[in-house]
C-alpha cells in the first residue's frame, strides 16, 4: 500500500469532497502492545491522512478495538510511536488531554451518560473541556441534534430513546467537541437492522463533510460506499490494506479471502 494508491483512491471517490490534503492525521509506526503476555498489536504501521475514511475489519479478537482505542490513548501502547494530529502520544498528560478533545469516539454500546438529558450529554464536553459558555454550547448541541435528526429528543434521558437514536446522540456528542478525527468502534453491532440504517446514514453524511474517520465495522456495504481504504486485521496484525474495490474484488491474502467468504 503506497501513497500513490491512496491518492488515486481519493480521485476516484464518489464524494464531492476535495481530495484529501496530504497532511497526516494519524501515524502508527511499529506499534506493539501486550496485555500481560498476550501480544494484541504486532508491528502496526498505519498512516491516515486528513479527510480519509478508513474501515477496519477482521475476525473477533483480532485487536481492532485495541487499535483504535490506542488512537485516543484509552489504551497505552508499549513500543513504537503513535502520532495524532502532529502530537506524539506519550506519557505527557497535556498531550493526552489535547488529543482527547480533538478525537471523537463512538462506542458499540453508545455509552451515553444515563443521569443527564440528551442536551446535557451533548453540552458536557464543550462546557467543561472546551470551556465554552452554556448558551453557546446549547446552540451547537441543538445544531448537531438537528443534523442527526432528533432535535425533539433534547430534553429526554438516554434510556427513553431507541438504540439507533442513542447512537446518533452519541455521534452528535462527539461532534459537539468539533473533533478533527472521529473513531467508531462497531457503532452498529448492538442495533436492529432498521436502526443500523439510520445510524449509517448519519455516518455517511458525516463522511461527506470531509471528516477524518476510522471505523471498525462489519458493514461491508458501508465500507464500499464510504471507505478510502479497508484494513483487515487478524491476530494483531494488519494483514491487508487496500482501497475497497480492490479489497473486495481482488483480495491478495488467503486470510482476507477466508474472512470475506465468511462475512459476505
Amino acid at each position, binding site marked *: 500500500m503506497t501513497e500513490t494508491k491512496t491518492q488515486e483512491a481519493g480521485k476516484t471517490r464518489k464524494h464531492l469532497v476535495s481530495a484529501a490534503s496530504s497532511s497526516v492525521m494519524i501515524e502508527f509506526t511499529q506499534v506493539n502492545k501486550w496485555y500481560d503476555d498476550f501480544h494484541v498489536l504486532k508491528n502496526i504501521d498505519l498512516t491516515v491522512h486528513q479527510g480519509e475514511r478508513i474501515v477496519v475489519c477482521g475476525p473477533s479478537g483480532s485487536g481492532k478495538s485495541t487499535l483504535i482505542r490506542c488512537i485516543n490513548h484509552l489504551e497505552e501502547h508499549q513500543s513504537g510511536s503513535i502520532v495524532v*494530529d*502532529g*502530537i*506524539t502520544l506519550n*506519557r*505527557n*498528560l*497535556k*498531550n*493526552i488531554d*489535547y488529543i482527547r*478533545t*480533538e478525537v471523537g469516539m463512538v462506542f458499540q454500546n453508545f455509552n451515553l451518560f444515563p443521569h443527564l438529558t440528551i442536551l446535557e450529554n451533548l453540552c458536557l464536553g*464543550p462546557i467543561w473541556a*472546551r*470551556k*465554552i459558555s452554556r448558551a*453557546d454550547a446549547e446552540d*451547537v448541541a441543538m*445544531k448537531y441534534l438537528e443534523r442527526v435528526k432528533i432535535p425533539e429528543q433534547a430534553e429526554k434521558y438516554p434510556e427513553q430513546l431507541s438504540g439507533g437514536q442513542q447512537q446518533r446522540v452519541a455521534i452528535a456528542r462527539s*461532534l459537539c*467537541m*468539533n473533533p478533527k478525527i472521529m473513531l467508531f468502534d462497531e457503532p452498529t453491532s448492538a442495533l436492529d437492522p432498521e436502526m443500523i440504517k439510520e445510524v449509517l446514514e448519519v455516518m455517511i453524511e*458525516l463522511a461527506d*463533510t*470531509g*471528516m477524518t474517520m476510522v471505523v471498525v465495522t462489519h458493514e461491508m456495504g458501508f465500507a464500499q460506499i464510504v471507505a478510502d481504504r479497508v484494513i483487515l486485521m487478524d491476530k494483531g496484525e494488519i494483514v491487508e490494506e487496500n482501497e475497497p474495490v480492490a479489497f473486495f474484488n481482488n483480495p491478495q491474502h488467503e486470510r482476507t479471502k477466508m474472512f470475506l467468504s465468511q462475512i459476505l
Partner: protein
Amino acid sequence: MAVSDNSKKSEQIKPKEQFDFFHDERVRSVLYQLLTAAAVALVAWFLISNTSKNLEARGMHTGFSFLNVAAGFDSYFKLIPNEAGVGTYGRIFVIGALNTLYVSLLAIVASTILGFFIGILRLSSNWLVSKVALAYVEIFRNTPLLIQIVFWYISVFSLLPRVRNSIDLSGGLELVLLNNRGLYLPWPVPGDSLWLTGIALIVAIIAVCVFRRWAKASQDKTGQIVPTIIPSCLLLIVLPGAVYLLTGMPLEWDVPKLAGLNFSGGATLPPSFVTLLVALSAYHASYTAEMVRAGILSVNSGQYDAARSLGLKQGRLMSLVIIPQAMPAIVPPLISNWMSTIKNSSLAIAIGYPDLVSLFMQTSLNQAGYAIELVSMTMAFYMFVSLIISGLLNIYNKRIQLVER
C-alpha cells in the same frame, strides 16, 4: 464537518512535544505519591512529637515492660487460672482475649443456627409464621444492640431468683440451674480410658465419610439411591457408644450441688456471660435470617421449575439445587456478620462481663496507665482476628470461583 462558529474556540495551543516535566504522567504520579506520603508523615510527626512531649510532661512511662508486672486485680470469669496480685498484665490480656473469643464463638454458633431457622421461617408459605419471623427480624435489627444487652441484663437476668429458689432448666433433675448468680451446668470429668471412646468417635466419623463416598459412587454406578442418613447416624452413635460402655463408662459428670449459700461443682457461667450470649445471638440472628432469606430468594425461580421437572422431591430439591446455589450469596455476608459479632461482644463492658475491652482498655488502663500500649494492643487483637476472618472469606471465595469456572 467544518463548523465555523466554534472552530475558533477549538484552536487551542498545541502542546509541546518534547518531554514536559510537569505534565509527564510518571512525574505526576511520583509527585502525588510523595505529597501524600509527606502529608501523612507530617501528621504522624505532629502526633508523635506532641505525644512524646506530653508523656514527658506528665512523667508517664512507655514501653511494653508493664506486661510483666503483676496486676492488682483479677477477672471474676476466666478460662485460665489467675490470681490478683500475681497474674501479670500480659496474663490479663490473654484472659480478656479468651473471654472475648469464648463468648463470641458461642454467639456465632447460636446466632447462625437461630438465624438459619428464622430465615427459613421467613420464607414459610404460612403467612402467620413468616410475619412473626419478620417481626422478630425488624424488632431486633432496628433497636440498638446496647439497649438490648442492657435490657436483657436488667430486666431478665437481674429478676432471676436467688440461689435457694433456682430455676431448674432440666425439669426436676437439678442438673441445669439458673439463678441470679448465673447458669450452673454439669461439667464432664474425663476418666482414664476416655481416649478410647474418642478414638472410636474419630473412627466412626472416618467410616461415615468413606461410607457416604461409597454410597455416592454406587449411586453413580447403579442409579440406586443408597440411604445414607440413618446408617451414618447409627454408625456415629453405636460405635463410640459401644466402646464407651465396654471401657466402663469412663466419664463422670460433676453436677452442681447446693452447698451452704451457693452451688459448688459443675460449671458456672456468670449472668453477664449468659446475657451477652443471648443478646448477641438474638441480635445477629436477625441479620443472619435476612441473609439466608435473601440468599435463597436470589436463586432464580426457574431453578425450582427445572428441578421439579426433573422429578426431584422438595427435600432433595432444596439440598441438591437451591441451597448449593444460595450458599455463595449467603456465606460472604455471613462471615462478615461473624466479624461484627466478635466486635460487638465488646459491648460486654456495659454489663461488666470481663472481655478484652473491659479488662484491658478499662480496668488495666485505669490501674496502670500506658494508654497508647493498651489501646493499640487491644485494637491489634481485633485486627488480627479480622485478618483471620477475611482470610477465611478469601479461601471461600477462591473455592467458589473454582467451582464456578
